[in-house]
């Protein structure tokens, strides 16, 4: 990576892509997210870490309003993407989710061909004018998902027939195909073996050039490897948020330090 691009990235990553203020989330009577405020920068990988059940997934799902699909879930507070309140009445959550893509913990390819998996989003949103256009989008997304070489000869084979790591990269490529601006990933590597994990991590690092990526992870090493910013959640609170290097080497909160050194599980 040459210096020019590095500085370029430095400049662009100054803007806040997502700004959340005083977010509260309730599942029925359970208070799952307590007054969380955070600013997520563009073209940056932000890692959410913390013990199980601390609300990482819940907060992530607030960012593309996936919590709307859960009946008992209630979200309060103010979340803005590019300055626009995503919980505003005028915002269509369906439209929002096209802009904020999501990759899930377990690879969930649709029971369709590899091609149709990728083409799903573009077709729904009318991104391709014709078949040739769609072919281009599919190839570009698969290339960016770093899986093109493995599947280019069997685009018509079912996506469910791929290995776990390939399926997860397919799901990432599928999310990229709708041209999102933010990519949310909820423990994308927890169902993968080390080699597939390494491939996905490499991919995340490349995605940083075009997207703002938010990744939930259980692995501290992974957070350290792929992210520039890290947020530590504990019991629904955002305990600490800062540069990844600083969080891991010199945390300011004793709870963060306990978690990183393995005392809170």
């Amino acid at each position, binding site marked *: 990576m040459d210096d020019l691009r590095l500085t370029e990235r430095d400049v662009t990553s100054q803007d806040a892509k997502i700004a959340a203020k005083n977010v509260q989330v309730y599942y029925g009577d359970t208070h799952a997210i307590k007054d969380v405020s955070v600013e997520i920068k563009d073209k940056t990988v932000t890692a959410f870490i913390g013990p199980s059940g601390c609300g990482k997934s819940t907060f992530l799902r607030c960012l593309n309003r996936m919590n709307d699909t859960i009946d008992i879930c209630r979200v309060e507070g103010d979340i803005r993407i590019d300055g626009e309140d995503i919980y505003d009445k005028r915002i269509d959550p369906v439209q929002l989710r096209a802009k904020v*893509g999501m990759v899930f913990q377990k690879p969930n390819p*649709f029971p369709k061909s590899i091609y149709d998996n990728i083409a799903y989003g573009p077709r729904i949103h009318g991104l391709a004018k014709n078949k040739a256009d769609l072919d281009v989008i599919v190839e570009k997304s698969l290339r960016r998902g770093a899986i093109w070489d493995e599947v280019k000869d069997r685009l018509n084979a079912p996506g469910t027939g791929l290995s776990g790591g390939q399926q997860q990269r397919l799901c990432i490529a*599928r999310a990229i195909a709708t041209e999102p601006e933010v990519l949310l990933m909820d423990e994308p590597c927890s169902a993968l073996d080390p080699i597939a994990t390494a491939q996905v991590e490499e991919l995340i690092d490349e995605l940083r050039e075009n997207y703002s990526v938010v990744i939930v992870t259980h692995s501290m090493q992974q957070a350290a490897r792929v992210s520039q910013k890290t947020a530590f959640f504990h019991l629904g609170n955002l305990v600490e948020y800062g540069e990844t290097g600083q969080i891991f080497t010199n945390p300011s909160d004793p709870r963060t330090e306990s978690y990183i050194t393995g005392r809170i599980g």
Partner: protein
Amino acid sequence: MPVFWLALIVLAIAALGFAAGRSRALSAAGGDSRGLHSLPTYYGWNVALKAMVPAFFLLLAWLLIQPFYVNSVVSGMIPDSEIREGSSRSLMMAEVQRTATGLDNAIAEGVMDDAFARDPDADIADVTERLKSSGQIVTSEITRPMLQAAQELRVKSAAGYSIMSIAVIIAAVAGALWGIRESLPDFRARNVVEQGVRMLLIAAASIAILTTVGILLSLVFNTVEFFRLYPAMDFFFGTQWAPSFSGRGGSSELGVLPLLWGTLYISIVALAVAVPIGLFSAIYLSEYASPRVRSVAKPLLEILAGIPTIVYGLFALLTVGPLLVSVFGRDGLNWMQSGTAVMTAGLVMGIMLIPFVSSLSDDIINAVPQAMRDGSYGLGATQSETIRQVVIPAALPGIVGAVLLAASRAIGETMIVVLGAGAAARLSLNPFEAMTTVTAKIVSQLTGDADFASPEALVAFALGMTLFVITLALNIFALYIVRKYREQYE
């Protein structure tokens, strides 16, 4: 001794054996169950099984075989000269059996005493009179050889049953003693009981399978018998269904095509009603309805599935038929002559199948993993896009299976057809005409006093066989489709 008491005695022996085996094993181990190979109850069960299983098996076998044996012995007593014109030995034996039962009942009612019933030289007229006065059915003249045969039958049966009681009790006691003797600490009672349980389960499964095979064989034999009397070509390719009633002369035309066509036509109408409505209501219930609506609507739909088909038949006859006539009948479009028509039966059968399709599809749609839906929502798809493009394709094999199952129910349905579609076998394309189906004709061929050996009655078996083959093919096809999709998607 009545079989019921005998069974109770065997159970009592088994219970005593259970206690004895358990306590013997325990005392042999010095009262400490840790010294035993198995838990004490296993020793008890070992004894109980050994007492019960052989005894009940013997009882069952004896009850099945003895009548055959006694019958064959007694039927040898009837001289050939006694067999009436136009009758046969087996018909005479039926008469003898009826007389024997009559004698038993007459004794039970106190009309005659046991000695009188046994007297081989009793006055025939007197016996007949007493039998009749106690309400027994005496169809034809009782002759002396017949009376004697009946008396012999009673004696032999009674003797047989006493021997049976003794043999069964001996078997139970012997089994129990054998089991008790075994009840020593080293004996692996648990393994033996495990084996016994396995055998019992195998026996249950075999009974189910053997019964099915038996039904199938009786279908096959009677069908073959039918084709011996009636040409198969005429049956399969005949376009006329016009059975003459036996005894009135004239030959029947028994072509299956009009019936198959009626079955097919009514089923298609029924599925055209049931599949869209059932599927859409399943989608609404599983994807859109709030939990509260769902918890009310789903049981309501399932109540619909519990309505007996005869009630649907009444609904067809009394409500739907007249309703259709008022629209399509002479006062309306004049397409329909009477209330019984393919449309009437098809619509009502469709309503009957709605809960069937919806409840199966609902389960299948619910089984589609939430991860699939999340994936689709996460890409910015709306709910109906998600359902159309992800949920339904993923659930399709199951839904096809549900539809085919509904089809086999439609094909096998009888009461709605009898009441709603009429009885006229007809090859016609007009859905407002009366038609009939294979099942309805099976009923009409077997009710009434047709001779069971005539082609007009035997054709019922050929029809049943045809239905069976069609339903079987449908089920195999359903399995094939389900499996094909599975391979593709898993």
